[in-house]
């Protein structure tokens, strides 16, 4: 790349005031002594001037009152649920929040899975497997309730001595 090409690439930042110190000085002194680069500077300045004029004159002066009325109308209007949902997703699932949300969601799922293992009724795997029962001569019933996945061992007691009274023994059988 020739020195003029390098300088002409830096003309924009230099005219924008973004090149300071030695870099800015190098461009300034080169443009002062080089006719081609001075012409390029002139073209760029004209472009900027024209751009500025075009962009600023094409925009009409807005009346504030009607502008604000429309903004206010939007603020007060109830948005359809799907627009609210999209807006909520966009604000909630933005990248920095997502960095926190992902581990938090994993933690929540693990917590729920762990919680689901406690006997709150109706949980997935609460059945007990009964490997042995010895009721020492008494009758025993084994029930598995599908609804709550609960295993029930019911002991029918002999009326001899171990019950508090005979009548109660008769009543102690389960109704299931």
């Amino acid at each position, binding site marked *: 790349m020739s020195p003029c090409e390098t300088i002409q690439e830096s003309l924009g930042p230099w005219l924008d005031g973004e090149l300071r110190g030695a870099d800015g000085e190098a461009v300034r002194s080169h443009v002062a002594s080089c006719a081609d680069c001075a012409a390029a500077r002139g073209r760029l300045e004209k*472009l900027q001037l*024209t751009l500025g*004029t075009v962009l600023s004159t094409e925009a*009409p*002066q807005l009346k*504030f009152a009607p502008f604000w009325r429309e903004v206010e109308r939007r603020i007060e209007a109830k948005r359809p649920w799907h627009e609210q949902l999209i807006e909520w997703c966009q604000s909630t699932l933005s990248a920095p929040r997502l960095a926190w949300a992902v581990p938090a969601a994993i933690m929540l799922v693990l917590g729920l899975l762990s919680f689901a293992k406690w006997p709150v009724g109706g949980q997935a795997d609460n059945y007990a497997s009964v490997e042995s029962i010895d009721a020492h001569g008494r009758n025993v019933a084994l029930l598995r309730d599908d609804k709550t996945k609960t295993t029930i061992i019911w002991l029918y007691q002999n009326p001899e001595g171990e019950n508090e009274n005979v009548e109660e023994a008769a009543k102690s059988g389960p109704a299931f």
Partner: protein
Amino acid sequence: MELSDWQLVEKSQAGDADAFQELVSRYHQKVFMVILGLMRNREDALEVAQETFFRAFRKIKSFQGGSSFYTWIYRIAVNNSIDAQRKQKRNPLDFHESMDGLFEARNEVAKDPFADVQDRELRENMSKAINELTPEHKAVIVLRTIEGMSYKDIGEILGCSEGTVMSRLHYARKKLQDKLSAFL
């Protein structure tokens, strides 16, 4: 005493609608100009500008002041404009007569700096050339030209580095110069 932007933001965050209205009154014209520069259509630009302030109102509570309010509002404006541009293509600088009531009365002919025939041609061609730039190139040109923003601020608004802003500006200007070489 006039309140600073940040004081108005804090009041808006606390639910003060008048404070938010004051912020809108400070920035509506500049935001509209930037959006018009990007959209190239007055009707669409007005719609996007109003939507920009509506969205700013909805998001104001999450604005932490990590950047200045104007950088933040321009970021919303530029993003909305780029989204809207991608969604629809309309004729540049087309506007409906029914929208006249929204603009201040203005004698455009008397104030027209392009009275000369060649300059009028330049204006038309410049407008066409801007319209042909990519949304990213248009954004750097508009923010730099209308607002005279630093590369740092432009980078913050567009979510890119100062180096990227510098390079986009260089190529955008080069494209404009190529298209307007007969006039410049």
